């Protein structure tokens, strides 16, 4: 990208820095090219402030029709790649049209920005926040620079958090009762529970607990659902007998999870499920899927 920019727009060098950039937490973020880069982390209602620095290359001047910085919240659907839908758009005009001969610095500030959605990078959809600096030019084309940042929103522990308890079975074959201690887990939480075997008439090889993410995009007839299994955790090895109770203790931390997103801007949803899978000796699978809600707890409280 830089190379391209350099080729066509050798006119100036632009940098965007945040005022608290040195102290602000940086988190890794996967970029489109697959590489990971560290980007600053924000949450909703925070104030984004900083400086933009435009520095023409030596001896050159930049003629422009104005300099502006935008804070954009965008959703990009992969079936419609490159077409961003902006759900948030704030603009700060930094300069009136004129020429820049020398390095010029513009402070900017977006106070208490409402950023209701978290950054999300899914299979079919991406939600990102970006600062976009535009040096508008006429025929020569505008100079644009992006600075991505990440948004994570924290939620308090839910006041109501019932356990998930259910009895399922196949008649005269398998009858189990399972229980997960909560229905809502934060991302570093641990799922505790147990599987109680009421009736076992099949020879089992093992029992796994899968964490699945279901991402649905679009709406109505165009809804597209993508399910991926993020983790497979073996709970049991072998066949239990009737009356056996198998403990569940699954730490969520090692998995790459996000909070549950419901109907984000009518564009997409991300839901999480616990899938209890029993595999018999003939490799038949018996499973029961239960939705859990994930939320992000304030880090210091959760770790």
């Amino acid at each position: 990208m830089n190379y391209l920019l350099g080729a066509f727009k050798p006119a100036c060098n632009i940098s965007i820095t945040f005022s608290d950039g040195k102290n602000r937490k940086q988190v890794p973020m996967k970029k489109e090219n697959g590489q990971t880069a560290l980007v600053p982390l924000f949450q909703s209602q925070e104030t984004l402030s900083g400086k933009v620095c435009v520095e023409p290359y030596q001896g050159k001047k930049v003629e422009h029709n104005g300099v502006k910085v935008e804070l954009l919240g965008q959703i990009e659907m992969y079936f419609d790649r490159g077409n961003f839908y902006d759900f948030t758009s704030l603009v700060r005009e930094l300069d009136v049209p004129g020429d820049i001969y020398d390095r010029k610095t513009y402070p900017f500030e977006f106070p208490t920005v409402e950023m209701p959605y978290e950054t999300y990078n899914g299979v079919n959809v991406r939600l990102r926040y970006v600062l976009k600096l535009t040096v508008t030019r006429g025929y020569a084309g505008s100079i644009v620079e992006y600075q991505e940042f990440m948004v994570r929103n924290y939620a308090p522990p839910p006041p109501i958090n019932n356990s998930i308890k259910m009895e399922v079975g196949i008649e005269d074959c398998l009858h189990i009762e399972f229980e997960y201690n909560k229905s809502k887990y934060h991302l570093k939480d641990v799922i505790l529970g147990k599987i109680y075997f009421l009736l076992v008439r099949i020879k089992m090889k093992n029992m796994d607990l899968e964490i699945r993410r279901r991402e649905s995009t679009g709406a109505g007839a165009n809804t597209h659902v993508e399910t991926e299994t993020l983790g497979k955790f073996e709970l049991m090895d072998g066949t239990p007998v009737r009356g056996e109770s198998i403990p569940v203790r699954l730490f969520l931390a090692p998995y790459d999870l996000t909070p549950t997103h419901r109907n984000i801007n009518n564009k997409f949803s991300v839901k999480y499920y616990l899938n209890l899978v029993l595999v018999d000796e003939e490799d038949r699978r018996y499973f029961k899927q239960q939705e859990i809600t994930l939320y992000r707890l304030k880090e210091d409280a959760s770790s």
Partner: protein
Amino acid sequence: MRRLAGVEDEEKWLAEGIAGIQHNAFFMHRALDANNLREVLKYSALMLSELRTSKLSPQKYYDLYMRAFDELRQLEVFFKDESRHGLPVVDLYELVQHAGNILPRMYLLCTVGSVYIKSKQAPSKDVLKDLVEMCRGVQHPIRGLFLRSYLAQVSRDKLPEIGSEYEGDANTVMDAVEFVLQNFTEMNKLWVRIQHQGPGTVREKQEKERNELRDLVGKNLHVLGQIEGVDLEMYKETVLPRVLEQVVNCKDELAQYYLMECIIQVFPDEYHLQTLETLLAACTQLMPTVDTKIVLTQLMDRLSNYAASSPDVLHEFLQVEAFAKLSNAIGKVIDTQIEMPIVGAMTLFVSLLTFTLRVHPDRLDYVDQILGACVVKLSSVPKLEDARAMKQVVALLSAPLEKYNDIVTALTLSNYPRVMDHLDDGTNKVMAMLIIQSIMKNNSCISTADKVEVLFELIKGLIKDLDGTDTEELDEEDFQEEQNSVARLIHMLDNEEPEEMLKIICVVRKHLMTGGTRRLPFTVPPLVFSALRLVRQLDSQGGDITGEEVSATPRKIFQILNQTIEVLSSVPCPELALRLYLQCAEAASDCDLEPAAYEFFTQAFILYEEEIADSKAQVTAIHLIIGTLQRINVFGVENRDTLTHKATGYSARLLKKPDQCRAVYACSHLFWVDDIDGIKDGERALLCLRRALRIANAAQQMANATRGSSGPVTLFVEILNKYIYFYEKGNPHITPSDIQSLIELINTEMQSDDNGNRRIHSDPFFTSTLRYIRFQKQKGGVIGDKYDLIKL
């Protein structure tokens, strides 16, 4: 899948598994050296994944497990050293739980868990509880068993038992017990479950495999037995009930048997004694196929040994009423386990008996009670045919004999004979022999008629033919041995009191008379002699007739004897009967009972006349008669005449001439008894000798006629000796000239034979006789003078 695979495949899989472990262990070691926790966890998990195999038999799996186990030790060292991996152990404890596969996860967790306890950053009981709980995830029997045994192993030195550094306010020995109990319970469940794997056709193999694994389960009980601080109270209230609950509920034959065995072996005797009731109750609840008898036997053996170890503990047994409880339990077991073979029941009784004899040697009623129960059991089965059962019954019956070293004690046991009734004839005899041997060995004297009665009832297998015995099958030697034993036994019956002794004799006689023809020849003689001993005892006491009421008189005894011997004569065993008659006659003579003596002689003569036909036997018999008659001095002249006349007459009518001759010269003694008041009828003695001489001559001529040569002169020399004897004793009718002429006769006989050929004979007997005469001559004195008259 494993079931169908051959041994070679299994070897291959094992090799693959080992290779897998080595491979990953290599990388693990590299990561360990680099202190790279992530890599360590990754490769250790991979390494442990090799243990997830289902293809190996327990034995092979154990090989694999041991390899992983060794590697885990090094991992543990790494985990212990926080400076190497940089994580607090509590975080490590969480971190290893991220592993996706349960088996590696659990091995790692157990390893970290042990480090965690050691660090004392968490109460050991909490960690232990967590570990034992989390291990539930592994439900595969073999993998689960090994995992849990790993847990048991790494936790063994970290239990909060008394005296351990991990014991504290929050961690009590109870927690340690709780942990081990839970692990034990789970392991046992897994172990029991192995049999439900795979098809039924491989049951046998499974049983074998399960047997190989049993020690993994039993180890927990050993640990329980070793935990410091498990006192009786705790054992009684917690440990035992929990263990037994598991044992009973698992409803598995192999497990129940093995675990009961373990319980009995690992916990102290004292505890067993105090919890006897619980333990025994569990025994009755085991599966019907469980060999409860061995379990109970072991228990009783242990308790017996405990009782024997120190006399101080005996009161404990009394306190807890050990006998009643054991007896009860055995009764229940026998009642409930209907399929139990009779040998089982008998084994139990034997053990109980052994126990009783050790613990309550003074309680004969207990012994009798056991025998009673045994009778009841035996009565419930049609016929005891199992050889092993028989053996047990013999052991059962022998035990009291050995213990008390005294048959008399056994005789007071009312159920003893009733048990013996259930033996088959062969065994009955063996047992009877044992009883007799015991008596012999201990030299015990049975001194009352009642006891004798019981005793003979016991050994009746030897005394008489039992119904349905095929006597043909009996080995002659064995039979003789048996009967000789009975004969010896009769001599062990003794009582100083004549009245009682007589009763004993009567009882014995009553029993012996049922013995049949083959036994009587063995058994009657000792009885007769026993009676005769009584007679002599009475006689020596003298004037015993103190009242008409007294039954033990010699007269009475002789009557009995007469009848007894009479039976023998009809056996037929006339020679023996004759000898016994003569013995009796002599005894009667000593008692001055002329009629009795006469009667016995009469019987003897009748036997001689009617029953003894064999000429050899006749010779023997007549000599016996003569000998006895000679010694008897009770007869009046008339009776004596009759008898001597008879004897002489029979002597002369023997078949062979030499026999006649010898018998006749023997008769000479009947007329000359060298006693102070003996009969001294010299004339008739001489007559006898002359007659003998005549017969000898006749014999000589007969020999000449038939064989052409005269026989040896032995008869003449013998007669010569008689002459010399009577001469020396002073028979006036024997003159030196008689002797001289006899010597000449002998010389002539020796020098000539029929054909007038002279030959020199030297007869040593004759030579020594002549030497005797010369010797007497030289003696001088009265004798010498007498002999001087004989000219040689």
